[in-house]
């Protein structure tokens, strides 16, 4: 062993060979994440810069992009009532569907904590809509459920309630059909809540019972506070998704009737790929980014007041 170090040390002094270079931790680190870096530059950063530039231009894909300053942004908020409509539709949708979905998920998760031989089956049944809910097949089926001759009206008639209205054809109810489709997919949030509930030590409840606290008190004083990090996580993710909703509006209602289901992403898509008003669509995308950023920042800053992190881990 000791006879050999001489030549090895000499070898080290030479300029590092490729394999030695690649074996340095910092080089290896970059090698491993290089795919991400390339993808990030090509599919995120460069397109982001390009779309920011295009948002200040008039560009219809055929000619050259013409610089028009902030005209797109000004038009959006002053002369495009359809845009403002899509904004209000999307806010309404997000602010109604996300809390409803999470409330549903939390209630069902609480019910699911009761252990029995079939709990696993129940959990799967409730989770199933989340798994397939995003598919076109389900969207098309949902459309037929709420059509004037669909299942909902048939069931109502069987209960001798005379209903022949088309739920997706009416301005008041169409958005609710889409909200219901979202709430129906509460299963994945429910599973996250279940995981959060499992982490609450049973001893807390035992101590509370010893002190004479009932179930309701236990829920509001133990379960809910300890679950706030999970609620927060769900709230952030679902709100972001809520603002980006597209499929249901496109497939089920096409934004109709009277633009009552014209989601932001749907209007943006129409502007870009029906009207080929790509500069305007890019400007819309950047406003969406700002809205989502603001909503996330708002949630994070409010979290200090209501999210309870248990000790330091």
């Amino acid at each position: 062993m000791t006879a050999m170090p001489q030549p090895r040390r000499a070898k080290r002094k030479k300029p590092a060979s490729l394999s030695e270079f690649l074996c340095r931790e910092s080089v290896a680190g970059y090698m491993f994440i290089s795919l991400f870096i390339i993808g990030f530059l090509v599919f995120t950063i460069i397109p982001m810069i390009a779309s920011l530039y295009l948002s200040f231009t008039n560009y219809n894909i055929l000619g050259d992009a013409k610089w028009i300053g902030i005209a797109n942004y000004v038009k959006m908020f002053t002369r495009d009532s359809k845009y403002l409509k899509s904004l209000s539709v999307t806010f309404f949708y997000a602010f109604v569907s996300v809390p409803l979905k999470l409330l549903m998920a939390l209630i069902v998760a609480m019910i699911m904590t009761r252990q029995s031989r079939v709990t696993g089956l129940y959990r799967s049944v409730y989770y199933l809509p989340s798994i397939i809910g995003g598919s076109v097949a389900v969207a098309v089926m949902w459309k037929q459920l709420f059509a004037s001759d669909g299942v909902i009206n048939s069931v109502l008639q069987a209960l001798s309630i005379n209903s022949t209205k088309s739920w997706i054809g009416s301005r008041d109810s169409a958005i609710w059909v889409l909200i219901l489709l979202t709430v129906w997919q509460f299963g994945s949030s429910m599973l996250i809540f279940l995981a959060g509930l499992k982490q609450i030590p049973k001893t807390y409840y035992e101590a509370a019972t010893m002190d004479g606290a009932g179930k309701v008190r236990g829920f509001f004083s133990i379960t809910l506070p300890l679950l706030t990090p999970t609620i927060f996580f769900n709230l952030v993710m679902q709100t972001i998704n809520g603002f980006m909703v597209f499929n249901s509006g496109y497939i089920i209602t096409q934004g109709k009737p009277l633009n009552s289901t014209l989601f932001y992403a749907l209007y943006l898509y129409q502007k870009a790929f029906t009207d080929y008003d790509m500069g305007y669509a890019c400007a819309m995308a950047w406003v969406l980014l700002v809205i989502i950023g603001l909503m996330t920042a708002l949630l994070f800053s409010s979290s200090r007041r209501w999210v309870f992190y248990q000790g330091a881990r």
Partner: protein
Amino acid sequence: MAHMGMKKQRMISSVVYHLLVAAFGFIMIYPLLWMIMSSFKESSTIFREAHRLIPESFHFENYTNGWRGFGGYTFGTFFKNSFIISVTASIGAVLSSAIIAFGFARLRFPGRNIWFTCVMMTMMLPFQVVMIPQFLIFKKLNWINTMLPITVPYFFGQAFFIFQNMQFIRGIPMELDESARIDGCSYYGIFLWIILPLIKPSIITTSIFSFMWRWDDFFGALLYLNSPSKYTLSIALKMFSDPSAQSDWGAMFAMSTLSIIPILVIFLIFQKNLTDGIATEGLKE
């Protein structure tokens, strides 16, 4: 006697509990059952008998009628396209995410935190912000109406999967890596021979999610595929359902049912991976 009363009470409460939970579960999956059952009804009676779940007699001609497809292509083509795209994109997403995750989870290098912040950023970034320039790039490359725009980008890692793999790798004791290094194994060897075999559960979970998400993907197909020979199932179903194309609802529901079968099968086989994946990492669409 008091003891008997309590036992009885507990039994009644248990029965009520199961009745309610099961009834609600039935309502939850009723729309699905209705779709599947409608695919066996005679096409013209589907809406006249919308309130009835079980068909009076089972008809299979909806399946043969629907399978014929449109534009000269059968649903066989659409299934094949969906399958090729989902599998290709998933292989790319799963492998690249595992490689990238190892770099972030195990190696120290300058700029690591900044790059990791970038990963998290891509998770929150609305796709609309990059959608148009990406479209223009792919148009320049002549990639429109090919599967490339909806597969190639997945070969550069997906934030959710990177995150999921990182969590998993962090659970593997560092000593394993260190002892391998003493034996002269490079970082690449450690990843390939030690970490990769150990993160198999995580690879399986991400594969399942990736496949299901790609299978259901509608927006990518809507943007980039515009001839029936290239259509995936999701875009084909959308076209098939347009009133102008046809109104054979039996055939429509038959093809819809077929389209969700792969997802249902995966769900039944990998239920545990799916529910655990959701529960531990909060993975979701």
